[in-house]
Every structure is written in C-alpha cells, then in structure tokens.
C-alpha cells in the first residue's frame, strides 16, 4: 500500500514487518523516532518482541549480542556518538557471527556539536566486520531492512543500514509498504542451528590460540568477501517479488560514461541530476551510488566504471591526515585495475546540502573547468573558509 511516511518511522515499521523478536536501544537524535515507535508497537501488542531498555549504546549492543546469540531476530538503532560508544561491541557482534541488523542515522561527531548529516560516524566503523549499506531514499530504508536480515541470517554477519541524518530520517516520502504476507514470504523465520540454549549447553567466544585464530579470521574474510554476491542475489530475489532492486552498486547512465560521479547515501539523487545536466552539455557523464561499502563490492564497482576516465568521488567525511574515506576505498579498489583518475571532493559534512550544481561543478573542474574549492592534500574541500 502506498503511503507518505518519514524515514525513521519507516525503519520502525520495517522492523515490525521483519518480525524482529528483540529490540535493545538507546535514543539519540536523529534516530529517536525509530526506537520510540518500536516501543509503541511493542507496548500496544502490535509487535511480539522484547524491548530491553539500557543505560547506554554500549549496553544496547551488548544486549543485542546476547539476544542474537540465543537465536532471536534482533534490531537496534543508533547514531553518531552512540555508534562510537558501541565500537567494542560492534567487533564482538561481527566476530561472534551474529546477524543483528542496526539502523545508523548518519550524523556528525562532536566537537563542535552538530546534529546533521555526515558519514564519518559509520565509515570510521568500517573495520569492525559489519556489512554496511547506505540508503538512497525512504523506500530503500524499508526494502533494505528485509534484504539485510535475509543476507545477515544466511552469511551470519551483522548489517548496519545507514540513513543520512535528516535527509532521510526526517524526510517524508511516498513509499510502497508491502503486506505482512509478502514480507513473510521473502523473509522466513530465523532458526539457526547453533544458539545459546540452557537445555543444550555449549560455549561460544572462548579462548583461541594462534594455531586456530588466523584460520578463523581467514575463514571470516572469505565469507565476508562473498557477501557482495549474496546481497546481489537477495536483491535480485527481492526484485523478482517486489519489482524494486537494491544492489550493492547502483548505476545511472554508466554504459558509455567517461565521467562518473560516485556518492553514498542520498546524494545519489543529486548525482543523477548532475550527470543528466552534464549530458546536455555534451559530456558523457553518469553516476554511481555505492550502496554497499563493506564488504567493498569490488567486482560490481570495477565492472560499472570500466570505461570511465574520471571518477568524481563525494566524501561527506574525512580521515584526518589522509583524505576522504570513500575516495580511499575507490582508489584501493581500482589500483592496478584501471587508469581512471580519482578526484576526491569533501563536501556536505555537518549538514551542508549537496546539490546538483555542486556535483556538476566538481565534474566540470575534474575535466579542466573552473576551480571549485580549496585543495588540501589529495582532496578538494568545497565551500570552506581558507
């Protein structure tokens, strides 16, 4: 059924339709509406789940780890400082092979205090072993939650669904909300073979010496790299049932593109508009929405940009002392495989709007046009004071 709904409300409704069994969460702007709504759904008996109130995000993730280990479908939501506080437990969730799904509302890290969109929070957790997916619109929030559980419970790894703070969390859009029966058909109940069970005691996460430790890490890396394919298949199956796909790499006019604007999150819309505007100027431009950042979708990404000469990468983040994190990822993916030039632009941090004009100007500059921002190291910063 079509309806107008806000991003945070959508995330809560998606968790209800996914029939999550345990929610442990701590409120933080801009995700608060999600956990408030889930608390309401559970309180009214519309979702048969346990809601565990906790005193911090570290405890929220610890509770999720315990709940998931018992074989329950587990959900949480956080943002920014809260995600940072979970850091230790994020490693535990992934290393414990627990298929938790978490919404992260992308928000700047303080100081200075700022509530608005910025990707440094989630990208700085990219080495924790979580699958990371970035939504481009509110429909994506709904659909990717189902795909996330399906993939997570197949590969036994947790998934972080990222929503741009305010641009998605507080934006109301028209989306198609699937019926419960349709979701049930796509997402069967979670019933793992191995779980913590008092009637059948066993030990998880015990001490492991060097003899097996590296082998376990190797095995986990192998299975994490396979997630690109697993997500693609889950997206294809979702598309077959619902008519919408949510692949790791989503391209727009890439077939003959020489210039490709690469974005994560909601800037993908403006990137499409910018690419279309450049086409009207006679530039063979396209855009690429990098929906999955971990595991990095090496195969799909290389294939998508195989003909490109310039990649214009937007980073709403920075790794201090290096450059934009997405640009680093893209360079690493293409090293030795492509001669395309990668142009790193840092813009849209702390809530600055990313518009079609900003992205088109970046692409024009990459092709030798007018200088747009301030060059610093390997990146160009847009709209900053010198």
């Amino acid at each position: 059924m079509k309806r107008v709904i806000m991003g945070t409300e959508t995330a809560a409704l998606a968790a209800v339709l996914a029939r999550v069994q345990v929610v442990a969460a701590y409120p933080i702007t801009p995700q608060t509406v999600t956990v408030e709504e889930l608390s309401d759904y559970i309180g009214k008996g519309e979702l048969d789940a346990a809601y565990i109130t906790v005193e911090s995000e570290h405890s929220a993730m610890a509770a999720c780890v315990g709940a998931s280990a018992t074989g329950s479908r587990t959900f949480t939501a956080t943002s920014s400082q809260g995600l940072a506080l979970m850091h230790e437990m994020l490693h535990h969730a992934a290393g414990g092979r627990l298929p938790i799904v978490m919404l992260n509302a992308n928000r700047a890290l303080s100081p200075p205090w700022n509530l608005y969109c910025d990707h440094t929070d989630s990208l700085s957790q990219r080495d924790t072993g979580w699958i990371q997916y970035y939504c481009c619109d509110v429909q994506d929030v709904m659909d990717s939650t189902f795909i996330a559980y399906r993939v997570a419970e197949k590969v036994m790894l947790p998934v972080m669904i990222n929503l741009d703070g305010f641009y998605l969390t507080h934006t109301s859009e028209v989306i198609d909300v699937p019926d419960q029966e349709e979701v049930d058909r796509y997402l069967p109940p979670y019933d793992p073979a191995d779980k913590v069970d008092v009637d059948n005691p066993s030990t998880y996460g015990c001490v492991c010496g060097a003899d097996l430790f590296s082998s376990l890490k190797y095995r986990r890396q192998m299975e994490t790299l396979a997630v690109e394919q697993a997500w693609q298949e889950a997206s294809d199956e979702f598309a077959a049932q619902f008519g919408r796909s949510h692949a790791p790499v989503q391209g727009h006019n890439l077939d003959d593109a020489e210039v490709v604007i690469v974005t994560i999150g909601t800037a993908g819309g403006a990137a499409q508009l910018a690419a279309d505007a450049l086409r009207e100027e006679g530039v063979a431009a396209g855009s690429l929405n990098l929906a999955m950042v971990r595991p990095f979708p090496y195969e799909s990404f290389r294939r998508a940009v195989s003909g490109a000469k310039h990649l214009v990468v937007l980073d709403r983040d920075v790794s201090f002392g290096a450059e934009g994190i997405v640009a680093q990822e893209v360079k690493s993916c293409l090293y030795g495989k492509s001669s395309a030039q990668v142009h790193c632009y840092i813009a849209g941090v702390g809530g600055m709007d990313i518009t079609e004009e900003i992205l088109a100007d970046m692409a024009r500059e990459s092709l030798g046009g007018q200088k747009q921002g301030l060059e610093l190291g390997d990146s160009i910063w847009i709209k900053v004071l010198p």
Partner: protein
Amino acid sequence: MLGIRMHGRGGQGAVVASKILAKAYFKEGLFVQAFPAFGMERRGAAVAAYVRVDSSPALARGEIVNPDVCVVLDPKLLEMVDVTAGLASGVPIVLNYADGQVPQDLAGRFTLALIDANQIAINHRLGSRLAPIINTVVLGAYLKVVQDPPLKPETLFQAIEEGVPAKKQENAAAAREAYERVRVLEKS
C-alpha cells in the same frame, strides 16, 4: 515541480503542517517530499520546512532555494528571518497577520495571502488565547493562492483531520474559515 517553504517557530507546527500539505497532494495522486530544517531543536526558535510536489519522485533534497510559495506562521518572524530570500517577484506569501493590517514592505512586491490565524484558532478553541495553534488554519489560506497543481479544498481538510493529533474537526473547520476569509493582495 511545486516547491513550498514554510517558516515557523519550534513548537508552532510548521513541520506538522508541511506533512499535512504533503499528504494532501499525495491524495491527489502526486509524489511528495516533506523535509524540516531545524536549527537547534528548541521551542520558539525559527524553523523552516520544505515540501516538494511533482509528478515523479524528487531526486533533489534539502533546502528549496527558490520556492514557488512561502508560508509564514508567525508575523514576528518577519523581523528575524528574511522570508523573501530566493522568492521571485510576485510569488505568493501566505502570512498569519492581524486583521485590517498590511505588511507594507512586502505589499506590492509579492502576492500576499493574509489571514488572522490567531483569532480564528482562538475562535475554534485551538490552543490557548496566549498560544493559539495556527498551523492548520494557515493551510486554509494557502489553498486560495496556490492552484497548480490542483488541490481540492476537501482533500486538504481531510488531510488535516487525519494529520492532527487532536480536535480534528475543529482544525478542519478553522482551515475552512481561513479559506473563506483570507485577504489576497495581488502584486502591484
């Protein structure tokens, strides 16, 4: 695309009004995107909310720099915020303003839809005399000056009833009264 910008104060209901308007256009079969721009989230602080209405989903996000219509919930905001920023000459400004008075610096440059929303809200017992709830009242005045794409009055009134947490009929009746009583001053 129809781009709407609403100005209000935190707690005044600009964000709720933007969602009601979005849902009304959705009922007319259009794609909508409603988006608030908070400063820091505080009661009384100036806030803005935006609505995009189109025949296809909006790809652009964030501030609408050149809106096609501007809605101002509180006349005092005129002293704090440049509500005319980015407005082309003649664009409609829907303004909550005391009966019989005219904002001289806006008159003639824009199409003004003036409505004493405070008085109407008080008459319909929306909020209190000191803090009337005027967000849905102002939407009634909006209806009079924005025709494209079409929005049927009954559709808006229904969206208001569905979109407010309490006093559904009073809110719709107050919007209806505003629709009938709004003073429209065309650009000279």
